């Protein structure tokens, strides 16, 4: 009986051992299956990074106003999906001193730690990663330095110069270390970034081009409308008065009327000629620069000549026109004829827009930086700051009470500006309503000099 019980016990122990072994074996298989399944899901999540980037690309592109903003938003998506600790976009920076220089354009995950601005990566590889077995030599040394993280994953697109780098504190980050299979992920993410960036840049360029084209179209429409008006007005006068003066006309003109109408026809003809000359001038501005005949001439002489030419107009308008004496030897290298045209335009404009009793002063000086500054200042009606850009457009005498009450083609300022720019200079207007206007021409140092003056003759005062 005891023997039987001992046999039963032994059998039970064997049975227990069998079940324990089976339990552990089955449990181990379950554990491995569970882990394989989890790993598959984790890998799927990782591989969805690029798909998500592609899906999000349009949204990000719409959300971001500039291409520069795209980088941060895309890094956010990359970090969220790969769960890396830090990430950055870098761009190859052409530099004569260091051909391997990269600039970190966007970085994420640094918290209070500031990312590096520049990094040198000798012979930057297209793809690279570090693991615990990596030897810390170039390029591992430089790449880990970018994110200050020991484990990095890097992709570089030589054609565009853009690079993406991901980094982790610990090797077994969340699920596993970086491995060569991650090449697709990092290169895919970089490609999406480059594509979206290019698309965003094209989109912005297209928008600018569209706005410019629309503005040019509106400007041309305004130009043609104004031009038609400006041409018709004197032509109508010429035709109307000459009709009345023609033999067989039903009008019985007195000698005085005859003379007056002939005068009107003459003035209209001259105005028309002036207008046509200005239009031709304006339309040829683009090709005027190569045709300039540049010679050194005394600034004071140039300003004096223009002032003298317009002194009659000034007297007629009861405006005091004064040329202030500047540096006697100041010379500028300009096309004399064209620059006289500029000064004449500016001075006549100043006289026209200055009421009786006002004044116009003209001066020239050399600035401390060597440039020449030519100034035409009046005490006239002036204009609002927002109207100044329009004053520089053709036929854009400023709207308002006095807009068309001043004679002229409305091309004077645009032509003057175009000619100054053809000389390599700039034209700037400062003005305020009721306080007058100051037009400043700046000529670069390269066309400015102070000439030696001939010694004064004995006895000269």
């Amino acid at each position, binding site marked *: 009986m005891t023997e039987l019980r001992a046999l039963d016990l032994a059998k039970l122990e064997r049975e227990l051992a069998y*079940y*324990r072994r089976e*339990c*552990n074996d*089955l*449990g*181990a298989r*379950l*554990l*491995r299956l*569970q*882990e394989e*399944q*989890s*790993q*598959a*899901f*984790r890998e799927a*999540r990782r591989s969805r990074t690029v798909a998500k980037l592609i899906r999000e690309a349009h949204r990000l592109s719409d959300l971001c106003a500039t291409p520069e903003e795209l980088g*941060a938003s895309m*890094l*956010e998506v990359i*970090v*969220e999906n790969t*769960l890396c*600790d830090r990430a950055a976009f870098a761009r190859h920076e052409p530099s004569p001193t260091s051909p391997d220089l990269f600039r970190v354009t966007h970085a*994420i*995950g640094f*918290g*209070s730690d500031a990312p590096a601005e520049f990094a040198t990566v000798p012979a930057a590889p297209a793809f690279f990663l570090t693991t*615990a077995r990596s030897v810390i030599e170039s390029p591992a040394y430089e790449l880990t330095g970018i994110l200050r993280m020991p484990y990095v994953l890097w992709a570089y697109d030589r054609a565009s110069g853009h690079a993406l780098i991901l980094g*982790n*504190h*610990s*090797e*077994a*980050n*969340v*699920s*596993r270390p970086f491995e060569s299979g991650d090449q697709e992920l990092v290169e895919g993410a970089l490609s999406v970034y480059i594509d979206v960036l290019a698309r965003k840049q094209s989109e912005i360029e297209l928008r600018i081009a569209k706005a410019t084209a629309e503005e040019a179209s509106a400007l041309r429409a305004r130009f043609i409308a104004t031009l038609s008006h400006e041409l018709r007005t004197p032509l109508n006068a010429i035709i109307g008065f000459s009709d009345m003066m023609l033999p067989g006309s039903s009008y019985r003109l007195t000698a005085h009327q005859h003379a007056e109408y002939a005068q009107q026809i003459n003035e209209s003809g001259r105005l028309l000629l002036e207008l046509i000359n200005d239009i031709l001038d304006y339309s040829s501005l683009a090709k005027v620069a190569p045709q300039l005949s540049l010679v050194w001439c005394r600034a004071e002489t140039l300003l004096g000549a223009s002032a003298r030419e317009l002194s009659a107009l000034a007297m007629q308008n009861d405006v005091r026109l004064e040329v202030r004496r500047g540096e006697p030897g100041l010379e500028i290298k300009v096309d004399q004829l064209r620059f006289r045209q500029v000064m004449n335009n500016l001075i006549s404009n100043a006289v026209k827009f200055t009421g009786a009793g006002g004044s116009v002063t003209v001066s020239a000086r050399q600035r401390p930086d060597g440039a020449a500054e030519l100034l035409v200042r009046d005490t006239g009606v002036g204009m609002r700051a927002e109207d100044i850009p329009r004053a520089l457009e053709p036929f854009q005498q400023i709207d308002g009470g006095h807009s068309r009450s001043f004679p002229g083609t409305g091309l004077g300022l645009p032509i003057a500006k175009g000619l100054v720019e053809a000389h390599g200079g700039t034209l700037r207007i400062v003005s305020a309503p009721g306080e007058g206007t100051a037009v400043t021409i700046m000529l670069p140092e390269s066309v400015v000099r102070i000439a030696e003056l001939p010694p004064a003759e004995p006895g000269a005062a």
Partner: protein
Amino acid sequence: MRVGYGRSPDPVAAVRQAVAALGTAADNARLLMAFSGGKLDPFAVRAALADALGPVPVVGGSAAGAISRSGSGYSGFELGLVAFHDPDTAPQFLVSRGLEVDERKAGADIGAQVRSVVRQDQVVLLLFDSVASTQPPKLHYASSIVAGFNEAVGNAPVNLLGGGLLTDMNMSGAWVFDGDGVSKHATVALVFPPNVSAETVILHGCRPVSAFMEITRIDGATVYELDGEPALKVIERMLGLPIGGGRGQELSLVATLGQKQGDPYAPYDEKSYVNRLILSADANTGSITLFEPDFEEGALVQIMSRDNGLMLDSVRRGVEEMNRTVGGHDNLLGLYIDCAGRASARSGSSIEEAELVVRGLDAKVPLLGFYSGVEVAPFDGEHSRPLDWTGVLTVLRRRQ
């Protein structure tokens, strides 16, 4: 209690979004609880909160991620806020430091402070820095903190809940908002007034995959032998692959050691297991180091496998149970303290279990959750204890 959520790599923008979501509660907040993603600069977040809300104390700290009805994630850029604006339900907060010196003592210190202010049955939320060091990886043991706390609290009527704070799933760091600023190695206790009660469910997700094994050699959190064999060898045999060296940390993704409470031969019940995640493995000594040092020599344990299907079922069941319990009450806040390992990026779960909580919990309950390193909750009708691989879902409500 109002909840706000924001997400941005820019701390100021994240704060702006989260504060905007608080609505008028932001203007009257008496205390703010904040869980900030680990990639956000804590000092910048704290400064931005001060700019937005003025001199309101802020408690909480880093989180591997945040969970809310208006967004969830664990990219490290999330920010979850709770504004306590009603003086009748706002908690008072207490702070203890010195976890790096002695975790049990620091736990006892905060426990003594709690005991001195507790009058009736009161809910206490304990938030603490989970990471002692990263090289080598070492946690602040929640079991020591909670043991110290329980000793000091004694028989005071306290319903203790809590979570360990982390910056990310790799346990790279942690920090605490301690009311005034940002601290390391600190513990914060929020003591709710007696008119606030808590209903809690613990959501699990592990099942045993081995027979019972006896811990035959252990030192603190490091288990050297199971049934007389090197513990690592046992685990490696189960997994069918070598784990030692740098890959030790990966073990926390795969298996846990579970201790069954009560009758070991009773039918399987997820609620009867206390699980311990594996922090690291040492191939030289054949040992594994657990998240907590509260298992003892002679204890019977089982190797447990995470089971994502079971985890999702557990969440569905737990949320339904919670809805049945709190339905029709004056619910103030749903708080979900969710082990970071349960997130799909780490567990490999096909869907986010936190999403099931967000979608399943009664929509009238304001909800905020955070991804934690360890969870603390009342277990098996006894004192609260730290748990691994769980989700602790609590609804705070006005006591009737």
